[in-house]
């Protein structure tokens, strides 16, 4: 047979337009903190504000990748990714709170302020170890991962799929939100954590620290993108697509779909946790509002708008919807909800493959 040239075709025939868009976008992002250092008179000057906003979008981009991996590739529509994101954020927030140390208003060497005035006398056990940065980062990944592992194992094992899974994960998010709003949980209740001082020995309220955090987020985005690409281009990625389209058929092929789905769900939750951990020092506050079920759904719609099942689409969606939101909430706050709601409707009805689908049409895939 001479047909030895037959090789598996690349999964993402990422059109040149898309790949160019992705690279250009990343390059522009990488330039922002540099442009921020220019004198304000310069045409290219970028304000602190833009840097801060873009930093957040980067975190949202990682979250979108995580959702896309689970939903776009494996067909797991989780409405709980906002919760994984928030858990990662809380882990980082706990570390930042521990680092405040005696600089709190009560000057207690160990206890955060809110614990002091709520009458705690010693640090609750969930807080142990969070003074260490590696431990906190580990927790930011492990806690969402473990939660996803438990919920996923219970659900996938019982063959709970589709909307049932969505409803269950939404209930999980809702229960977590209620739990974190409780002051008795020892996580600061409604106020959450704020007034952070430093990270890794660097004061947070300096331009340099902000730029460093920005680059950390950008690097994390790059790493996440590569990781997701690794997964989706591997045979595992093809198994995921197969599970998404015909799960029971995959089972009859001898794949244990429970473990396949579970592994990607856990990985996805950990990525969301990573995004949350980067988000918190960038914006300086974490509170239970991040658990609200609406946030998770909103993040899903970023992916739908961009185009699920493609990594570029997830990023494109996260950035474009958030840019639209930033713009609209400033200039027409009343209209924003109509536009966002309209997006949900329009994308599901007319653009099932999102913006990427639209861009690809020209390329005749």
């Amino acid at each position, binding site marked *: 047979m001479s047909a030895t040239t037959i090789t598996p075709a690349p999964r993402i025939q990422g059109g040149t337009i898309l790949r160019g868009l992705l690279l250009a976008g990343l390059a522009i992002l990488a330039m922002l903190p540099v442009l921020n250092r220019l004198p304000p008179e310069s045409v290219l000057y970028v304000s602190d504000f833009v840097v801060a906003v873009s930093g957040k979008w980067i975190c949202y981009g990682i979250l979108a990748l995580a959702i896309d991996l689970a939903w776009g590739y494996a067909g797991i529509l989780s409405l709980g990714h906002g919760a994984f994101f928030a858990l990662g954020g809380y882990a980082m927030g706990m570390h930042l709170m521990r680092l405040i140390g005696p600089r709190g208003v009560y000057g207690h060497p160990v206890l955060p302020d809110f614990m002091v005035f709520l009458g705690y006398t010693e640090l609750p056990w969930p807080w142990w170890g969070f003074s260490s940065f590696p431990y906190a980062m580990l927790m930011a990944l492990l806690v969402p991962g473990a939660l996803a592992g438990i919920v996923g194992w219970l659900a996938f094992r019982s063959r*709970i799929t589709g909307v*049932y899974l969505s409803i*269950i994960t939404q209930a999980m998010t*809702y*229960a977590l939100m*209620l739990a974190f709003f409780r002051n008795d949980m020892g996580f600061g209740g409604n106020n959450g954590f704020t007034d952070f001082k430093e990270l890794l020995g660097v004061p947070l309220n300096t331009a340099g620290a902000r730029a460093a955090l920005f680059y950390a987020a950008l690097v994390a985005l790059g790493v996440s993108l590569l990781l997701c690409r690794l997964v989706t281009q591997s045979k595992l990625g093809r198994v995921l697509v197969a599970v998404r389209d015909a799960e029971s058929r995959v089972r009859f092929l001898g794949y244990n779909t429970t473990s396949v789905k579970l592994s990607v769900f856990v990985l996805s939750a950990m990525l969301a946790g990573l995004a949350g951990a980067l988000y918190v020092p960038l914006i300086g506050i974490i509170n239970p509002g991040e658990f609200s079920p609406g946030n998770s759904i909103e993040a899903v719609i970023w992916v739908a708008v961009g185009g699920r099942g493609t990594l570029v689409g997830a990023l494109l969606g996260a950035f474009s919807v958030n840019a639209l939101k930033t713009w609209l909430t400033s200039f027409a706050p009343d209209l924003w909800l109509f536009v966002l*709601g309209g997006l949900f409707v329009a994308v599901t009805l007319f653009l099932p493959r999102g913006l990427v689908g639209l861009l690809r049409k020209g390329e005749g895939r």
Partner: protein
Amino acid sequence: MTRFLRLLAVFLLFAAPLRAQEGFEAVVAGLAGGFAAQAEAVERLGALGDPRAVPILRALSEGRLQKSPEGALAIDGRDALTGAPAPTATEAIRINNRVRGALRGAFGRLELASASDAERAAAAAGLFRARSPENIQILEDALGREANPGVRATMERALAASRLAAPDAGVRRQGILMLGGTASPEARGLLLEARTASPDLAPEIDAAVAAIDQRLQLRRVAETAFQGLSLGSVLLLAALGLAVTFGVMGVINMAHGEMVMLGAYTTVVVQEAFRGIPWLFPWALPLSVPAAFLVTAAVGAGLERGLIRHLYGRPLETLLMTFGVGMILQQAVRLAFGAQNREVISPAWMQGVITLPGGVEVTQNRLWIIIFSLLVLGLTVAAIRFTRFGLEMRAVVQNRRIASTMGIRTGRVDAMTFAFGSGIAGMAGVALSQIDNVSPNLGTGYIIDSFMVVVFGGVGSLAGTMIGAFTLGLVNKLLEPWAGAVLAKIAVLVGIMLFIQRRPKGLFALKGRAAEQ
């Protein structure tokens, strides 16, 4: 007849032995003083028993009594004592809780002989709280004439309470025995209060309290059960529409909560429209039910025809899209009605407490909501079982293709089914307007719970939805006292999640091939 009774009352009051001869006018003048002086004046007016005091005290309690800078009292522009036109430049006399409490006692004495059962009962209740030994005599007299058993019971309690305050230990003991025979938490409170005042009677009081506690124990269980049923009925109402759209049609409607919200706003609109029509106004709430059904059914039909039908077979997309629809509806209502809560007035027949046999006190509005939820459930079942529409709906659900070959217009049936489910949600909104805030966010608080109820009960089973709703309501209320409201709710959510993974099809699973599609 009424006049005769009034005369009789006047006669009896004047005959009261404890009446001290004081200048009526002088006492009345005290009503213009500070809160302490007011309270004292009210008490003395009650003790005087002069019927002329009734309209003055009534005016005082309703904020219509006014005083001139000179201290003259006037009601509605006429002198309170003489009835002559009063000078202008008067200021309304304000009262506080202490005065209100004194007023209650005074009305008790003054109106114990009223012709109206309700007023006599209220008067007796007032005397129960005033608990002065001075009232023993008039209560005994009133009991002698009283025929209404409900009022008698209240009077007896008041008499017992008054005796408890008597100086004579024998009389007090009588009072203790009488109170021990009741199942009233207030009586229990009185007894405990008396315990510190009269340690000599402590053994009797303890026995009486123990007797009351035993009776209260049962009642407490009944009341917790009622609270659970009430929460269950709210869940049932919220979930029933979903049980139709999700359970029967398989459509995930995340805008379901907004349908409930629209129903509540329909209630507001109907109420505003009827505000100017006094004879219709009391009917605003009942009339809101069909109105809300029609409005939300119309919105539902539009939603199904316009959007949802394009996504049949793609439940995840339907979920996302309807969530967007929900946001749009919310914001539209917010812009149209404002973000603030809207006020919905409860009709008189839905306010207050009624006492069931066994002394169990339940709030009227919640009782009505329980009844209403069962009615709606009954109507839903009837509509599905016994109407042509229900038959067509079941046919389409079971086999769309065959149904359509038999001449059923499946598209129309889909639209009607969805409209029907939405309409039920709208009726739920009418009920919820009575216990929750009517705001654009009303629905979001119920959507997750509704889905939980439907999934827990078993998708496609109305009986499952009902049993699921009441089970969750009861469990929640049983957990609440020792876990607190939030933990109870979290525990219920986690419990459902675990339950569903044990039985993915819920309590009442459809079995067999049909369920596996």
